[in-house]
């Protein structure tokens, strides 16, 4: 079945909304009848990206996080945007176990999780302007 759908969500940067973002992405993707594992992968990747926007993008302070989900045929694309701090050195940031906030008990595994749970990951970032994460995953079940 050809199936197109799109949702754009803008929410307050507060940690209680991490679970909200997971619920929304999960309900959106469910339309494609994913496996439980595919759904868990997507929920986890979304959680990583939204958490990063809140704690790194806005340092836990005020701001807006935007999540856009697009279904096209068998693929879901999820874009997560903040207009916060941005990332100075993307290569360093994306290294497994690198974190700029060890004092918050961050593990530095967020990008690694996104990368291995999704089929595609693109990170665009500009210092003091913000960060955009684009992830895609093909839902095999969908037909």
């Amino acid at each position, binding site marked *: 079945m050809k199936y197109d759908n799109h949702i754009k969500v803008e929410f307050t940067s507060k*940690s209680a909304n991490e*679970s909200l973002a997971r619920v929304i992405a999960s309900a959106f993707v469910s339309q494609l009848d994913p496996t439980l594992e595919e759904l868990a992968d997507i929920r986890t990747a979304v*959680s990583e990206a939204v958490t990063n926007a809140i704690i790194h993008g806005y340092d836990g302070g005020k701001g807006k996080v935007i999540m856009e989900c697009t279904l096209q045929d068998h693929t879901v694309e999820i874009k997560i945007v903040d207009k916060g701090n941005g990332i100075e050195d993307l290569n360093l940031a994306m290294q*497994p176990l690198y974190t700029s906030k060890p004092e918050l008990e961050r*593990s530095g595994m967020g990008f*690694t*999780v996104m990368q291995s749970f999704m089929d595609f990951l693109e990170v665009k970032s500009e210092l003091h302007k913000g960060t955009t994460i684009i992830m895609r995953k093909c839902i095999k079940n969908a037909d």
Partner: protein
Amino acid sequence: MKIDFVKKENVLSIKIDGEIDHHSAAEIRTKIDAYITGSNTKYIVLDFKKVGFMDSSGIGMVMGRYRNIKRVGGELCIVSVNNSIKRILDMAGVTGIIPVYKNQEEFLGVIK
């Protein structure tokens, strides 16, 4: 999110019930650290039976508790993790450092 503490002698079982993300990890950390401070806890068993979701924020929470108890000569292990959480723990190398048991019973058999 709910946390149950069951203490028998110097073994503290911590049953977490809910999702572990950055939001809840903060609460879990605070509650665990408060419970342990001043107690004679030697072994911590983190029971993940009722954890349906965990992202990388959980790694930091687990490793933080591991480091604290090691510092005072104690031990920490994890029991009853599901596959998807196991994958995240593996990815970060946590399972190479912290022992993972199938369930409480298996762990108790080992320390006996």
